[in-house]
Structure formats: C-alpha cells, structure tokens
C-alpha cells in the first residue's frame, strides 16, 4: 500500500509472476523493517549503555529507591517538611498544585476566550477591534514572559504592599461592614471561600431528593411534548425545580455552607480563613488563563465562521429570531468544530503550568527541579516527571476520543 493505494505487486494478478526475492517489494519491505528495528534497538542500547556506564562512573545510584528518601527541603503552605519523602508525598503535592492551577486557568481561559471570540465577530466596531487587539497581543507573547510579567512587575515589585507586621497588606471590606473580603499584598492574596458549617447530611439528602424531582419533571415535560406537541421547556422545569428545592433546603437547614472570609492573623504574618493564595500561583494561573484565552478566542471565531452561510440564511428563512438562530442552528454546529481544538488547548495549558518554575510556585516541575538542585538523581526524577505529563496527555486524548465519537454521531 502506498498512501492507501494498493500497489501492483500486492494485487492478485501479479502474484503468478513473482519477481526474485531481492526485487520483491514485500520481501524488501520486511527486510527494511527488520533493519530499521535492529538499528534503532542498537542505537538505543548504545545510548542507554553509555548512560549506565557514565552514571556508575560518576557514582550515581540508578535505582528508583532513592525517591523514597527524605527530600531535605520544605514546601511553604503545605503539610510537607524536609523529612517527607519525595515519593509519594512531594509528587502528590506537586500534581495537586499543577491541577489546581490548570483547573482555574482553564475556567478563566474558557470564559474569557468565548467572550472575546464572539466579541471579534461583533457588529460593534469598537468591541470587534478591542477583541482583535487582545488576541493579537496576547497570542504573540511567550507565556513565560506573561507569567514573569505578572510575577515580577505586578506582584513582587508592583503596586501591592508587602505583608509583614510592620506593613499590613491592603484589606478591602465588604461595603458597609467590618468583614474583610479581600487581602492584597505583594506575595499573598486572601480571597473568600466556602466552608462547611455543621452537619451536612440533611442537606445532601435534600439535594438528592431535588435531583430525583428534577429528573421526574424532565420526563414529565418530555412526555407532554411528545403527546401534545406543546413546547417542552424541560431544562427550565428541571433546573427550576432542582434549584427551588435546594434553596429552600439551604435556608431551612440554617445554611450548612457559609462564606469563609479571609483575615490577617494576630501576628500579622498569616492569613486565617478564606482561601490564601501566593503570588506564584496567581501569576501562573492568571497569565496562562489570559494567554490561552487568546487561543480559544481564535478557535471560537474560526468555528463560528466555519458554519456555512447557508445555515444562517436557512434559519432566517424559517423566521427564527437572532437568538434562536444562534442557539439552535449556528452554535451546535460551531461547537462540534470547536471542541476538539479547545480540549487540546486545555492540555497545552496544563503542560504550560510547568513554567511555574520561574516564579517558585510549587507545582510538580518546579518541585522536581528543586529536588534535583538538592542532589536527587536527575535521570529518575525526569523520567518520572515525563511519565506524569504523558499520563495527563493520555487522559486528555481518551477524553477527546470520547467527545469526538459523541459529536460525530450527530453528523454525516
């Protein structure tokens, strides 16, 4: 086969007069493959043999047991001191931090990216121009430069005050109250978070009931639609019912979840309550969110433009309103085009969190780099690091295949 086209030698007709082996395409193919495999194996053996010899000569351990020894360094803001082992404690913290940054970054990127992508197609000249400028600037600057800009120009040497007893950070109160809503300093921020308060079981039971009711409403509306042809509006019914029960339960059960507001501790050194983040995390997450948003915006714009014009015209001919046209005709088709590359951007963002090495945010790559700097064996650690990222890629590509299959079912 050559690019999917069967070769003459492979078809039945020619088999009768087979050429001598040294000119037979199939024999040569097999010989070529054996030669290629053998030479690759030999080169790899040579390389790895060299590696082992050199490691032994340098007196470096080449087993993976070294990973269980203490790391001899501590990680701030984590339950990890210098006696904790590299595997699994450090790896768990690192992967957790990577995912934390990636998840929030992805949320920022999707929201901003979709808004800007649609903004680029706006009829309003000003919005279209602003979106275009955003995309053209952010897309063409290396993500590392953006991260470093946030870390050094915005946080460390930026407008925010340092955080220590002699210089308190900025504290922004909720309007009209004494509650601190935000704590801003040049290396840590405190933001409100949600904390549990009291017994959660009744509330979760209420949520389960709400879910059952919602499913019931959904089925009922679907049946009404099938039987009478009246508009089903099942999303509205189901979500409305669910939210109604949830809100009532939340109020009746005396708010099992409460806001937890950040507060500067007595000593003036720590943040108590809320969610405390450091400047490294903020720089990486915000910068990657903004950077990836520019790529997602381009994907969204491209996908909407890729929907044939005839579709819009057909929707107009059916007298759909502008919103209906988007909701039922353009967006479903654009989504199918946009989703695979967008998921790919999620993977890119996750891989880009490794750039946090420059801003001392303890995600997995910077922890591995610190460990190597502390005399841990580089080979094993980097092999482990690559394996971790390959796992991320594998998961994403499995998800992507599922999504592709699902979206292709709709299609031609």
């Amino acid at each position, binding site marked *: 086969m050559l690019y999917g086209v069967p070769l003459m030698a492979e078809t039945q007709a020619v088999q009768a007069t087979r050429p001598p082996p040294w000119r037979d395409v199939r024999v040569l193919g097999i*010989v070529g*493959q054996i030669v*290629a495999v053998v030479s690759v194996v030999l080169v790899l053996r040579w390389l790895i043999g060299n590696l082992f010899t050199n490691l032994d000569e340098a007196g470096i351990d080449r087993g993976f047991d070294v990973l269980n020894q203490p790391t001899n360094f501590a990680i701030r803001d984590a339950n990890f001191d210098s006696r904790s082992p590299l595997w699994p404690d450090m790896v768990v913290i690192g992967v957790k931090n990577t995912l934390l940054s990636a998840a929030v970054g992805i949320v920022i990127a999707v929201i901003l990216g979709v808004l800007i992508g649609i903004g680029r197609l706006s009829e309003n000249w000003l919005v279209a121009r602003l979106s275009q400028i955003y995309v053209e600037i952010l897309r*063409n600057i*290396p993500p590392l430069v953006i991260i470093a800009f946030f870390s050094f120009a915005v946080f460390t040497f930026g407008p925010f005050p340092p955080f220590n007893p002699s210089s308190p950070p900025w504290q922004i109160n909720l309007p009209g109250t004494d509650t601190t809503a935000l704590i801003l300093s040049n290396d840590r921020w405190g933001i409100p978070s949600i904390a549990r308060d009291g017994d959660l079981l009744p509330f979760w039971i209420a949520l389960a009931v709400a879910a059952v009711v919602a499913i019931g409403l959904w089925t009922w509306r679907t049946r009404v639609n099938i039987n009478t042809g009246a508009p089903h509006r099942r999303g509205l019914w189901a979500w409305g019912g669910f939210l109604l029960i949830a809100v009532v339960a939340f109020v009746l059960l005396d708010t099992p979840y409460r806001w937890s507001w950040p507060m500067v501790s007595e000593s003036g050194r720590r943040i108590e309550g809320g969610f405390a983040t450091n400047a490294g995390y903020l720089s990486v997450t915000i910068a990657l969110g903004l950077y990836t948003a520019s790529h997602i915006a381009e994907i969204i714009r491209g996908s909407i433009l890729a929907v044939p014009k005839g579709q819009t015209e057909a929707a107009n001919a059916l007298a759909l309103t502008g919103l209906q046209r988007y909701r039922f005709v353009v967006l479903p088709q654009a989504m199918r085009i946009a989703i695979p590359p967008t998921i790919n951007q999620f993977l890119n963002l996750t891989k880009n969190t*490794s750039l946090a090495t420059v801003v001392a945010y303890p995600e997995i790559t910077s922890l591995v*780099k610190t460990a190597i700097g502390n005399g841990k064996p580089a080979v094993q650690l980097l092999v482990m690091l690559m394996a971790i990222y390959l796992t991320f890629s594998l998961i994403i590509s499995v998800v992507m295949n599922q999504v592709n299959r699902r979206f292709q079912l709709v299609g031609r």
Partner: protein
Amino acid sequence: MTMTEVGGPDNPFILVNEPEGPPSEKLTPWEWIRKNLFSSWVNTLITLIFGPIALYLIYRFARFVFVTGRWDPVDSNLELFMIGTYPREERWRVVSQLIVMSAGIGGALGTMNASAKARRKLTGEEFVPTSWRTYASSYWSVVLFVLVLLVGFTDTTGPWLMVGAMVVLGVAGWAATTWLPDALRPLSWSASALLIVVSFQLLSGTGGWAWFYTVLALVPLISGVVGRLSPSIARMAAPATVGLGLAIAIAALVTSSVVVGLVGILVGIYGLVLVRQGDRLDATRVGLIMIASGVVTVLYRAIGLSGIDWSEWSGLHLTMTVAVASTLLAFPIGVLLALGRRSSLPAIRVMSVAYIEFFRGAPLITFLLAGAFFLGFFLNTESPLSLITRAIAAITLFSAAYIAEIVRGGLQAVPKGQVEAGLASGLSQPQITRFIVLPQALRAVIPAMVGQFISLFKDTSLLGIIALSEFLDVRLLVHAQEDFRGFGIAETMTFVAFGFWAFAFAMSRESQRLERRLGVGQR
C-alpha cells in the same frame, strides 16, 4: 485582478493572486459611525460602556510609555539585551553577520520574485508583484521595533549606520537579482544562499555550526538518493542514507573542528556525483554552497580567525540563533517522521508514532532539563557538550514531533488520485513521494509551519530556565546592576514582551498572508 488556478509546478510561493473582495461602499464618516457604533440600542449601549474603557486604557498606556515609565534600565543596557555577554571586541562580527545576511536575504527574495515573473511570462498569465503595502502590513511591527530601538534607546551613530547598511545591501541584493538575466538565475540562488551561510560562518569561525553543515549536507543526499535509484534499491538506500546523515550529524556534533569543513566539502562532492539527472540544479546549488562554505572554513582556519564559542552568545541574538537553528534541524527529521507515520510498514509506523507521542506528551521544559542534566551521559563525548548545543538538541527533537504532525496533515490532504496517477505513469514509490506527494503536502502546510516556527520562537524564552541568558533573562543581569536593583521591572518586562511580540506578530501576519495566497482551504 483575477483568481488564477494553481500556477507553477514547483514554486511553492507564487500560486494564487490575492483574492479581492467586492468593491467597498463609500461611507461618509458620519454614516460609518452610525453603522458601526450606533446601529441599534444594544449597540449604542455597548459603545457607551466600552468607549470610555478603551479611552482610559489608551490613556494609561500612553502615560506609562511617555510619562511615568522609567526606561533607563533599557536605555543604558540596550547592547546587553541585543547580544548579552558576547565579547565586545568581537562585536564587528555580529555587525558584519547581519549586514551580509541581509544582502543574502534580499538576494533570495529578489530571485524568488524574478523566477515567479519568468514563470508567469511562460504561462502567459498576468504577473502581479507583491506590493509594498502588503509587505508593510506583515512586517510593520518589526520595523516599529527597530525604530523604537534606534530612536528611543540609542545615542550613538553606530546602530544607525548598521541598520542603514543592512537596508542598503538588502535592497541592492534584491535589485541585482531582480534584474539579472534569466540564464543566470540559478547562480543568484546559490549566491544568495551562500551569503547567508557565510554570514553565519563570520560568527562561528571554524566551529559551532557543525549542525548547519550537516543539514545542508542531508539535502543533496536525500534528494539524490530517494527517487534516483531503481525502486528496490532506493527502498533500502533511503533509510541507509538517512542513517548516514544522522551519523554525520553526531560526528559533526562531537568534533566541531576543521574536520567538519572537510566533511562538508566531501559530502558536497558526493552529492554532486550522486545526482546525475533530473533536478540536478538543486543538488548542484547545494553542492556548490557546501564546497564554498567548506573552503571558507579552511580559509578562516588558515588566517587564524577562531570561532567565538557559542557559550558566550546571549541576548536576542541567542534567541534568534536557537530558533532558526532548531527549525532548520527539526524540519528534515519531522518530514521523515511524518512519512514514517504514514508508511505501510508497521514496524516503522509504530516507531514513528512512539517518537511523536512521546515528545508531544510532555512539556518542552522537561526535555530541556533532561538535556541540561544528562544528555551528555548518553554520548561518549571527550569534552562536555556546551549548554547551547544541549538546548538546541532538546528543542530540535521536541519540535520535530510537532512538525511531523503538521506534515502528516498535509500528506493526508493529498488526493488519492495523485498517487494513482503517479503509479499509472510508472513512477516508483520513492519517486511518487518525492515528486508528487511531498511537494503538494509541504505546500499545503506552509502556513501551519510558520505557526510552529512562531511557537518555537516563543519557546526559546524557556532557555533561561537552564541558565542561558536569552532575551528574557537578560533582565536578570540588568537588575543585578547597582543602579537598577528592584527598579524599572515593569519597563524591562514590557520591552522584552514588545520584542518577542514584534517578531511573532510579523510572522503570524505572514502566515495568514501565505494562507490566503496559497489558497489553502479554497480548493
């Protein structure tokens, strides 16, 4: 202007005239404002919200640039940003490199233009030269960057003279090759390429550019062997040649000495001997360049002009060098991997897929760290490899995987009928690949390749992580100075971001233009 069908058979650059939209209706400014800003009440509301925001952002930005920004750290360290810690007494080499190179690039562009013109004349089509406005809309950001450097940050006449010389020689090269008689055109290709090669040699002296020779050496070898010999032999000879090329690459890597120059001469002659027919011209050109550059190497050696070890290169110069070198090296590997992935032989396909997925699965930084920490352990080198060599190796292996995926997309886009037509014409498999499939596939992926080059260019900012002072990390040197400690960080960062942006933006505009011009997605 008319849309024309695919023009020349082998020039990937000039195919379709730029498509032209319907004639735009003329609006008075008042009508334009009503149509674009206040067409409905929603539109008016949006304008009223975003208008003040936009004005405020412009105001703040202008204030930062012209009033509050304290640009002394950039002003007094411009040379540091450009060439980093490069030895100052050898500065003339960088200057002459840039000048010679711009003559070469001008020559190459002129030749391209002239051959397109000649081809149009042959086919009787109208030749529409690319207008200055088109170039300006692609490259204004680079021009702006250079102007900012010259006007804003230089006090001496030296840089002005250098840029002036670059412009004059570039235009001279362009003019000379544009008006050269048709018969001499092959010569002008070679001359332009030679100027570019020699300009790099001005810097490296005898060492350092081992990689560059090797890639050039691979071109005649591969184009010579694949498709020349009878199919059965070519089938074995092609991988063997590739293996030989890689072996030379490793040898060249390990021994960056005059030996490399001699290898260059020998391989050039070999390429000439090997190629006996058909596109002899290509191979002749490359062979000539190889021989000439080998001779230059030996000459430099004779007059004792030693190379500047590239561990001393840094700044924007290093960024550019690494980006260009890695792309040139990654391209042939990527094409081979793509062909391997589409191969009918399962073992080769599996190995290509494994390589591609491995390198695409992990971020570049892991490979850079691996290169920095233990690449040397894999090779039995006498002296340790320089950090830059390791970095280029890591980036090359990494981006080859991405290039392979791009080229694979192009290969899949070639219609089956093309291959069938090739088989019907009695061409061998390698011939079909070389003359039918690859030219079409590569042409279709040019815009995507430019995109990959942009991301490689942006990725060079990671070199700082393995302690190489590229453009971004020069700021660490600047802010280590007594006067600028913890001062003007936002300004230096903005300057660096502007530098990266100027080049990346120009390339992305160029890629969009090529996309329109090649009519990708329109056929």
